[in-house]
């Protein structure tokens, strides 16, 4: 049965130091609030997975939570690079960061393979790319019918996937809509699944019979966190704060400015509540 917990209790229970965690969201529905709570609880040595690590991963990396990152595009969308991620990779600040770099196609297929209980995914990709030379988790197999070489990557099976969604009903069934990204696959691929939602409702109000719904028995815990994706957005609830994404570049560029911002907006902000 799904538990309904506070964010603090959920992160304390489900995030262990050293575990492999995906906080997914493809620009939309990024679980910022959950990431901030991980930072506040000073989790360490995490292996983070995400196709598009953006600001919340930059913050977790800069605050020293992360040992390794499996990713395909790590930047501030439309703005530039992630300065905290760069600082960790280029200067080991605040600590070194191991990278496993893939393409989007590879990681999308790897999550889908995880959701499907397969050990690996096959797809047509990586032809001629130097990523093959630096990532031992990219291999090739031969189609047993045509002989064509196809790329293979191991399935992703996070210890925990955290996603944000529009709403859950009181049984814990969860609805996602809009740009749903790879969240359903990331959830179904994980051993445990934590979902933050804008609201908990009597009636899920799925827009149609084929809407993206995760049944309660696929989910470990639901946490109500209004605005839990901000400055990312929740389709039907609030928009993306593009101005904040732009402003982040200057904040993150400088170590001191970054630490001061985190202190004020993430660490203190919550402890004052």
């Amino acid at each position, binding site marked *: 049965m799904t538990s309904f917990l506070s964010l603090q209790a959920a992160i304390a229970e489900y995030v262990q130091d050293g575990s492999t965690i995906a906080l997914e969201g*493809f*620009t*939309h529905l990024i679980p910022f609030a959950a990431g901030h709570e991980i930072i506040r609880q000073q989790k360490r040595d995490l292996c983070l997975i995400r*196709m*598009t690590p953006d600001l919340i991963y930059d913050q977790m990396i800069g605050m020293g939570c992360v040992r390794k990152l499996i*990713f*395909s*595009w*790590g*930047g501030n*969308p*439309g*703005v530039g*690079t992630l300065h905290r*991620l*760069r600082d960790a990779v*280029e200067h080991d600040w605040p600590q070194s960061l191991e990278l496993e*770099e893939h*393409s*989007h*196609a590879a990681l*999308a*297929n790897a*999550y*889908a393979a995880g959701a499907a209980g397969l050990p690996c995914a096959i*797809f*047509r*990709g*990586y*032809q*001629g*790319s*130097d*990523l093959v030379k*630096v990532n031992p988790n990219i291999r090739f197999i031969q189609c047993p019918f045509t002989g*064509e070489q196809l790329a293979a990557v191991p399935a992703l099976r996070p210890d925990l996937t955290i996603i944000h969604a529009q709403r859950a009903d009181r049984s814990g069934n969860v609805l996602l809509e*809009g*740009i*749903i*990204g*790879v969240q*359903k*696959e990331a959830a179904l691929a994980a051993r445990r699944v934590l979902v933050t939602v804008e*609201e908990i409702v009597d009636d899920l109000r799925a827009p149609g019979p084929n809407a*993206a719904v995760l049944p309660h028995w696929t989910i470990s815990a639901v946490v109500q966190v*209004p*605005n839990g994706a*901000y400055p990312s*957005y929740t*389709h*039907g*609830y*609030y*928009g*993306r*704060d*593009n*101005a*904040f994404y*732009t402003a982040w570049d200057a904040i993150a560029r400088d170590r001191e400015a970054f630490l001061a911002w985190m202190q004020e907006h993430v660490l203190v902000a919550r402890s004052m509540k």
Partner: protein
Amino acid sequence: MEYSALEMMAIAAARVLKNEDVCFVGIGAPSEACNLARLTHAPDITLIYESGTIGTRPAVLPLSIGDPELSETALTTVSVPEMFQYWLQGGRISVGFLGGAQLDRFGNINSSVIGDYQRPKVRLPGGGGAPEIASQCGQTYIVMRQNRRTFVEQVDFITSFGYGRGGDHRQQLGITTLGPTLVVTDLCLLRPEPGTHELIVTSLHQRVTREEVVRNTGWPIRFAPVVEQTQPPTIDELTILRELHARTEQAHTGKALPHVRTD
């Protein structure tokens, strides 16, 4: 009407798009070019963003690949695995756009690192969808500013494969799509030379000299036997592009602070 080199770049890229194209759009210059094409000569062009939005018609340029307006104006929005499986790998995209930190003479692109891969001088964002966009779209157009930092003798790392070492290297790898058939820069247009597949200059933008192109290219760049002059932007093109930018500016500076749901 005066215009900037970047405006010329966007307009030149928009012009090659056709009404019946199905485009895999990237953020920045490609999104600018694709939406300009849609607002000018190609009203029915299908724009697809890798976030899963198919047939989208945003009124402003998205800042990110998954801005709210993309799915709000889309015909349909699919999951990201479906996008890469059924739509990109399925061979349904006619034109893909690519950019990157470095480009070499054979259209290979580096979006991963400057310097050594394991100990990079600059860690770049990575390829995202590009490695497979490069091989699976019918053809790709590269849109990039041209200078000695970006147009290099040899890329530090091939994130996305173009023509490899030239010739039929692409076919040797079993890739059946055309590859980068056009590069649009702030100075000129380049196309692969038949046979060698080396990128050569085929059109110079107004008031750009050959020397300027040579000076801004990290390899001994060659010119096509006949080099055309890119038509300057029309008033229509410039007006529509600038209106698009003005709308975009306004949309992205307003803060969209979260608020309680009102419905």
